[in-house]
């Protein structure tokens, strides 16, 4: 410090370096407290309504929660053991993975195809509105409407019978190999418009120079798409895929409305199964254990996609 004082002579009457550092520290502390004071409502909100329930849920999953009297016994990992030995949990996990897998690929792919199709065509705005329209309805309403579309005498079966393809008519929501695909079709029908609009925004934001240069160099349309458009669009595609995967992963209302009555709950996803066990069957602690597993999987997927985006951003 002395060396510093010697190197940088201070004007007479100026406070010492130590005093300045101390003053700066005081200001920094004041800024920190001011920042904390401003953030306090948000921190409080997150702590009370997010973190506390998460930790409480984790604790609840380690108890036996007796109906009508509440937490009355610590049970260790009993609920997780029950979960591991319950075939319905594996059904629900498998169905969730199907939902996630399909949501990873189809909505973004179809959305991108639609975006490429409608971009720049006459009536683009009208097409955009039409494709986006299903997203304006709540998933519950969409589920109810599509339940009747798939019904025995619904529009699909009636249409098939009308054109002489009655053999293809089916109990779409009551056959184990058809129910989940049927629900996913409805989900994609509702989601794809949003994906298309987001990707159109991404496409319109791309710089035109690289594409024009490639054209001049004689690149074909597919080459331009593969080697220029897709790489440039990748951040948007990853964002769209993340949104889509999380929407598929947490899909609840649609599955509840369309698949709740499927015998033996074999079409249900983890989130619906968790709701069923907790609120319909009254196994609150067991439902908490399912929620913990669901949370871990959701965080893993979201972190993986985040890491992928981070790696791409670095390139």
């Amino acid at each position, binding site marked *: 410090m002395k060396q510093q004082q010697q190197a940088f002579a201070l004007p007479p009457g100026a406070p010492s370096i130590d005093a300045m550092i101390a003053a700066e520290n005081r200001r920094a502390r004041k800024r920190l407290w001011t920042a904390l004071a401003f953030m306090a409502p948000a921190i409080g909100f997150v702590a009370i309504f997010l973190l506390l329930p998460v930790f409480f849920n984790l604790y609840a999953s380690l108890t036996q929660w007796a109906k*009508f009297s*509440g937490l009355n016994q610590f049970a260790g990992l009993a609920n997780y053991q029950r979960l591991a030995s319950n075939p319905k949990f594996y059904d629900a996990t498998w169905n969730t993975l199907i939902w996630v897998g399909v949501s990873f690929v189809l909505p973004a792919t179809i959305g991108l195809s639609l975006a490429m199709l409608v971009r720049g065509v006459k009536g683009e705005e009208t097409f955009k509105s039409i494709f986006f329209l299903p997203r304006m309805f709540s998933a519950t309403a969409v589920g109810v409407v599509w339940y009747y579309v798939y*019904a*025995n005498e619904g529009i699909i079966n009636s249409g098939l019978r009308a054109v002489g393809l009655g053999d293809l008519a089916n109990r779409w*929501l009551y056959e184990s190999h058809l129910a989940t695909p049927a629900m996913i079709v409805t989900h994609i029908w509702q989601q794809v418009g949003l994906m298309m609009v987001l990707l159109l925004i991404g496409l319109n934001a791309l710089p035109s120079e690289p594409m024009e240069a490639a054209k001049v160099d004689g690149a074909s349309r597919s080459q331009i798409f593969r080697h220029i458009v897709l790489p440039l669009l990748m951040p948007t595609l990853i964002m769209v895929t993340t949104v889509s995967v999380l929407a598929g992963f947490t899909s609840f209302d649609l599955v509840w409305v369309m698949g709740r009555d499927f*015998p*033996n709950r074999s079409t249900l996803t983890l989130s619906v199964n968790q709701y069923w066990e*907790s609120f319909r069957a*009254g196994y609150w602690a067991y439902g908490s254990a399912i929620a913990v597993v669901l949370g871990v999987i959701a965080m893993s997927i979201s972190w993986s996609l985040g890491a992928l985006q981070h790696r791409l951003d670095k390139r």
Partner: protein
Amino acid sequence: MQKKLSKLLAAVALGVTFTTAAASADPVTVFHDKPFYQSGWDGLTATAKKDGIDLNFSAYATDQFQAYIQSSLMSGDAPQAFTWWNGTKLKEIVDSGQLAPLDDLWAKKIASGEYDASSAAPFTVDGHIYGMPTGLNRWVVLYNKALFEKAGIAKAPATWEELIAAADKLKAAGTTPFNATIQDGWRGFVWFQELLLRTNPEAYAALNQGKLKYTDEPVQNVFKIWTDFYQKGYFTDATSQEEPLDFARGKAGMYLFGDWVIGLVEKGGVKAGTDFGAFIMPNVDPSLPNAVIVEGAPIVITKAGMENPDVVKFTDWYMSENAMNSWATDPGLYAGNLKAKTPNPIIAELAKIAADGKYTSVTRYWEASPSEIVLPAVEEFNRFMTNPSEEQAQKAMANIEAIASQYWASKQ
């Protein structure tokens, strides 16, 4: 001047007192999960107002309602009055120690001739009565008079043989005999309970108490009859979501269900007594005792509720002829008050049969068995109804037994 001022002050003070009292008197609120009875709730609210009772009903969806009641009982802050179920579900909640017995109220109402003592049975747990009925519903077979006539069936079946003959005649006339679906996910038990009761009532009781296995012969027999009925084409498409309206539209000749469905059937443009009648499902063996499945849906009152004079006043009023007359203005509702009007001729007839004492009331499977078994069992019944094969029947029995044996073992 001073006298005038004191009068004015006194008047203001009196006004403030009354205003405060009026503002602090909350209405009696009954929480329920039965929004489909809305016209009945509205009728009660209006009649209560005329009788000086400030009454309110608050509706929830069933799942949320159950979760709300469970959590509020856990926190010791349950609503003072709410609807619930009878049987094991009522016992569960009585065991929480927070419900008030209503023995004195029932004694008064039975003494006045408004209620039959048997009406209290579904709400009795360990010798005490814990509910006021919103419904005392018998599970009966509705039949379409026009379709019966078209098929040449002269009268409602009184024996099992007549029932099968009627089904065959309907089938021959191009009508599906029975309307049965898995609508809303809970209806799978309807035929199971009835077939078990009609073939072996002792087995029905034993099964609900854990003294019989789901793989034992009486249950095997039920699935045999059930599968046979499906193979003969006796049932409608199990996946329909409009069961009551399907019956009203003539999609089936008969419809086994609780009599509370009559109002919903009438919404399809047909009239109880005129277009359709009802009969109690006959026993397979005529020597078996007469029995009818009864579903009792109570309003229960917490101990804290019985400390509230407004709630006490409400309980006395609710079970009165006047209140029950307004309740019955909805076409399907009847809660057992013998002096109140019945909403339709079928319910009037069933009330008379019940009062005669010739039929034993049997608790519905949904309430008679522990919910830990009922819920997965219903899923298995539903699965069977959408795939009614012998193989599926065996799987259903084995799967339910696995859960039931685990449950009963945990209770020992």
